[in-house]
């Protein structure tokens, strides 16, 4: 009937999205600037549901942003700063070209700078939001803080990253919120629980980086810029929650002793101070002196049914956590020089232990090797010359495993020269049907309080039992065979006499396995029912079943591998014994 004809692509999803290039033109920014803006403002592309509709019928691959997002970017003051910076660079280049050195200096002094505070506030309106998103910034800052001072990025950035990461570690130590650690081949994963948020970060091992050529450091630098700002504010707030002084200051007596100790090692006072902070051996100064040990008792609420169970579980968890916090309390550690000092010092201090190292290794050591009260000496070499009798010499993995197990593991497995037990990931939570490595089972048993039996004896017993069983079975079988043989003999004797033309063979009794038949019936029933499924449901069902089967297959594979390995090692052992 009447009315204007509706034109295509003038409403709906075609108008809700905008391609990247059009967005860039709309903002009149270069691609690099647009990228930076998107990173800083946290704008990410969207995948439209119907690409063809959005792309006006074409199916060419394109990146789309929401038009709303781009409109939101239009009013960003930082865009103006980008332009200023562009102009600054142009002027500087010109001045260089003309060799106007005074001009260059003047320009450099007036280099335009921008702050990201408002962006942080805008992106994370509440502190918890920011804390939730701090994972990546932690990993990035820890990575940047390990970069060499020359080359890939500004020295100030590296220093800032180092400062912030040290602040973070000090906070974690003070709040004792470290929960899990994992030594992977990539680096060391840490997981902490800060204000109820689980935060995981990874720290690379302390080595010089081989800077890859196919990585765009500008992107990384932009992210770091954002992350350091966010991280700094988060740190400030976290220090505030614990009534700590920010920027961190060492506690009074510790500070004094340190200052008197080794001031001559570092030329700059500020430098030595930051080094002392990063040594992680002293506690931090507080705004308000803390009351000693304020025991907080959880209030009990009357609850029923499920809630009660939940409450109990929660309480139990709480108790466990407290135990973990105080795991190393009263223990005194000494780190040998070849172990990763920072990681271990961080860990031990997080669990309430005391830690020290050789004076020449790093600033901030509190006691010497010769201290008689040292309980654990962490060594990562096959043996050590001078051993004290009243301390354990253990490998560093013990510390990590103990933290993950939330208990002090038996030190025997971690003595010097001993083959270490496998280091398991604390992040894996096995559900039903998953493969659980036997070490984990053992650990769980330990945690439940069951005493581990002596492995070797057990194995031997098992072997003996098996052999005995085998013997028994064999003997039984033999007996049966003998009986049968007798019977046949008798029969033969009987038949020989008569020689009948018709041979009667005994009919075989088909053992009707009732359960099996039942199962088969059920399986068939299921198969038939599956035939009647709708197409879509069938697809989904098959997909789920495929995934399940794959999981089972993987688990079986792992189990088989383990079994093969165990057998191989057992035979090796036996051979050795025989030799």
């Amino acid at each position, binding site marked *: 009937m009447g009315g204007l004809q509706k034109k295509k692509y003038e409403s709906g999803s075609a108008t809700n999205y905008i391609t990247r290039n059009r967005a860039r033109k709309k903002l009149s920014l270069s691609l690099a600037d647009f990228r930076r803006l998107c990173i800083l403002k946290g704008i*990410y592309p969207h995948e439209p549901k119907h690409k063809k509709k959005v792309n006006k019928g074409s199916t060419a691959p394109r990146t789309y942003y929401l038009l709303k997002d781009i409109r939101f970017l239009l009013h960003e003051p930082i865009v103006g700063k980008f332009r200023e910076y562009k102009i600054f660079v142009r002027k500087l280049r010109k001045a260089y070209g003309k060799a106007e050195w005074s001009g260059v200096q003047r320009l450099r002094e007036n280099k335009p700078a921008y702050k990201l505070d408002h962006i942080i506030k805008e992106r994370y309106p509440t502190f918890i939001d920011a804390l939730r998103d701090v994972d990546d910034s932690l990993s990035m800052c820890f990575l940047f803080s390990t970069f060499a001072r020359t080359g890939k990025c500004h020295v100030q950035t590296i220093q800032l990253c180092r400062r912030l990461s040290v602040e973070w570690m000090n906070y974690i130590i003070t709040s004792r919120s470290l929960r899990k650690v994992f030594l992977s081949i990539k680096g060391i994963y840490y997981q902490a629980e800060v204000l109820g948020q689980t935060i995981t970060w990874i720290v690379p091992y302390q080595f010089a*980086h081989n800077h890859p050529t196919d990585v765009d450091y500008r992107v990384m630098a932009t992210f770091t810029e954002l992350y350091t700002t966010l991280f700094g504010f988060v740190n400030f707030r976290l220090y505030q929650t614990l009534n700590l002084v920010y920027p961190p200051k060492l506690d009074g007596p510790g500070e004094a002793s340190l200052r008197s100790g080794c001031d001559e090692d570092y030329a700059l006072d500020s430098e030595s101070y930051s080094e002392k902070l990063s040594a992680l051996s002293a506690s931090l100064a507080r705004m308000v002196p803390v009351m000693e040990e304020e025991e907080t008792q959880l209030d009990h609420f009357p609850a029923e049914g499920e809630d009660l169970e939940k409450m109990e579980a929660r309480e139990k968890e709480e108790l466990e956590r407290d135990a973990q916090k105080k795991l190393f309390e009263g223990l005194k550690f000494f780190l040998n020089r070849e172990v990763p000092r920072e990681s271990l010092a961080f860990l031990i201090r997080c669990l309430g232990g005391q830690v020290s190292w050789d004076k020449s290794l790093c600033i901030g050591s509190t006691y010497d090797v010769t201290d008689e009260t040292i309980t654990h000496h962490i060594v990562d070499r096959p043996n050590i010359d001078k051993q004290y009798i009243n301390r354990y010499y253990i490998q560093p993995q013990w510390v990590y495993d103990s933290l993950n197990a939330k208990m002090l593991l038996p030190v025997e497995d971690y003595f010097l020269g001993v083959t270490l037990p496998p280091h398991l990931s604390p992040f894996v939570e096995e559900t039903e049907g998953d493969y659980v490595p036997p070490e984990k089972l053992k650990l769980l048993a330990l945690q439940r309080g069951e005493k581990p039996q002596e492995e070797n004896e057990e194995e031997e017993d098992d072997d003996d039992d098996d052999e005995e069983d085998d013997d028994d079975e064999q003997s039984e079988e033999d007996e049966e065979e003998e009986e049968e043989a007798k019977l046949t003999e008798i029969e033969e004797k009987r038949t020989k006499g008569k020689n009948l033309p018709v041979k009667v063979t005994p009919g075989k009794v088909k053992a009707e396995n009732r359960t099996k038949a039942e199962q088969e019936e059920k399986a068939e029933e299921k198969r038939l029912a599956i035939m009647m499924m709708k197409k879509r449901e069938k697809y989904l069902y098959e997909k789920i079943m495929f995934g399940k089967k794959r999981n089972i297959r993987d688990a079986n594979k792992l189990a088989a591998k383990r079994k093969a390995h165990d057998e191989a090692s057992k035979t090796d052992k036996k051979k050795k014994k025989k030799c």
Partner: protein
Amino acid sequence: MRPAPSSTMSKLKSKKRNIDEDEDDQLPIFEKDNSKDGHLDDDDDDDEGQADHSDSEESVFSGLEESGSDSDDEEEEEDEEDDDVSVLKSCDVEEDKRTSEDVQLSTKDITEPQNDIKGSKDKKKKKKKSSSEVKKDDESVTVTSQRIEGLKILSHVDEYERDSSDEEDIRNTVGNIPMEWYKDYPHIGYDLDGKKIFKPIRNKDELDEFLDKMENPDYWRTVQDKMTGADIRLSDEQVELVRRLQQGKFGDVNFNEYEPAVEFFSNEVMIHPVTNRPQDKRSFIPSLIEKEKVGKLVHAIKMGWIKPRRPAETTPQYYDLWAKEDPNSILGRHKMHVPAPKMKLPGHEESYNPPPEYLMSEEERLAWEQLDPEDRKLSYLPQKFACLRAVPAYSRFIHERFERCLDLYLCPRQRKMRVNVNPEDLIPKLPKPKDLHPFPTTQSLVYLGHSSLIRSISVSPSGQWLVSGSDDCTVRFWEVSTARCLKTMEVGGAVKGVAWNPNPSVSLVAVSFDNTVLLLNPGLCDRLVSNSTDQLISSYEDPEESKDQHVQWTVSEGEDHEQGHRLTLKHPKAVRQVTWHGKGDYLACVMPDNTSNLQVVIHQVSKRRTQNPFRKSKGLVQCVSFHPIRPYFFVATQRYVRVYNLIKQELTKKLMTNCKWISSMAIHPGGDNVICGSYDCRLAWFDLDLSTKPYKVLRHHKKALRGVAYHRHYPLFASASDDGSVIVCHGMVYNDLLQNPLIVPVKVLKGHSVTQDLGVLDVTFHPTQPWVFSSGADGTVRLFT
């Protein structure tokens, strides 16, 4: 000048005479020349004085010069020589140091190569070339000569000592023009006095040239002066100079090119200034402009407009950003924001000391390496290290962080609801097959005998006999209960269809092969029935007016009759399917042919009548069927089933099957439901009361369906397929119109083997028992009970 005598001069004339003749006239002129610019020649003279004059014509000129030079003073000669050498020394300041000794030395040097040349002829050829080069060099020599001349003339003016660039060749005033312009004239230019300079008389031919070459020891050092056309013999020094220049050396032997440099500007302060210019006055007077500028700045500072620069803050200042958390600041976009998913947490296999089962075996590692980095399940190889100390840096650490960054700002984010379904819940709840008994469950009998695939089977209405038609051109009759073949009948072609008359009082079987339909009386059942059937057929009387029919009816007689053949219906085309009406009088035949309207014919056996019900072809007819109760006729074409009312003679319904190609069709005994099997593995159930679209489409089979069948009493239907299986389903049709039929698959019957991609070809139920017969491509009929 006198060119004539010189041109007429014969070669035989002795040289000396020539000289004598010309001497007198030319002498003054050449003297002049000599005095001005002929010093080069003078040099020659010195040598030539000793050398032998073997030249014929050349020497005319040179001889003249000789004479001229003879007249010159010896002192003068020496002077000239001095000057010349000084030029050779590239006109340096050290002119005075030159001595004649050097010249002598150099001449000695030259004599040696001269001798060599004489020795070998080959070298002479080379010398020819070199001589041409020498000629080129000659020009440069002339230039130097000019300079020397200048020296000579203006020796007292030192200023222009080296400035000879703009000087012309004064011997010849024609200027810098191509000399070939004068090649047709006897003269070659004009001297300073405006007199013609005549070319030397040269009428040397090849022979002269050759003789000259042979005899004249100085031939190799003789060059032609282009400006004057005269032959010039180069002196030893000149030759040496040329040689040195060719070698790229300095002309002067004594010149040291590596003398220590004397620094002009140095760090040492000299007592004298570099320039002696007095300072300007303005350098002593203070600048007004500067004063003005400084004044302005001072004023600005006084007024507080200019402030001292504060050092820029390098370290960022942090403060409590979230001091006042404003609930209003949480905007809609924060709610819409999709936070980036966190990084995946590592599993056991990433440990530096993983349990042994997580390490890759050799094959796994190879497979991992061969995979594309994108397809790998793990992005790294699990490794085991004996101690923490041995763990190296992870080389891809920065890469991984970078990839995470890229993910954060480049990846589109979308909220996806994860389907969390218990797969068991997806399985529909159906009544258990156990509760739906009876239905066939096991294969109990196999009817063996046919040697080829069995296209069609049919059961007698009593359920006692079974007929099967096969591609081996036989029809076999079986006893159902014993699987014994009672009768085998050979027919003239591969049997496409068999159908037992559903009327129990008539014992007739319709068999179709090629374009014939045969009505057989197997004589298996009650003799009464058999006889009555025979009677029925024989009692037919030809009507008076015989109609023109498409089909020819013939009564079998003789041997055929003995065998049981009763009637033969010859069709115009190949018959594919035969089907009886429920009453047993009408018989429908299908002759698939897309082009004609004669695809379906209905025969009336009692009246031996044939009619073609359709005037128009509506597509390739696959199969037809009569409604069991009402006068309806079902015709299945490739994609549709059409239902015709035979009485009203109209189309009542058109069923859309949604299939590509219907293969078979069966009507529910109630008449309200139809199933259609198709070659695209589907079975469509139609409820005629409900819709023309399928009530349910079942896709149970893996391959094409060949046959479908309903049971006459039990709520069962079966489908046969090329995958070698027969699926029996419970298909309950309720009397209540509101309740939809219940379809439950109850049994998959397997037994037939698949031969040549064909499995089960036909399926039919026993009329009374819940048994199902199936015939397959393997030449067997099987009974499932």
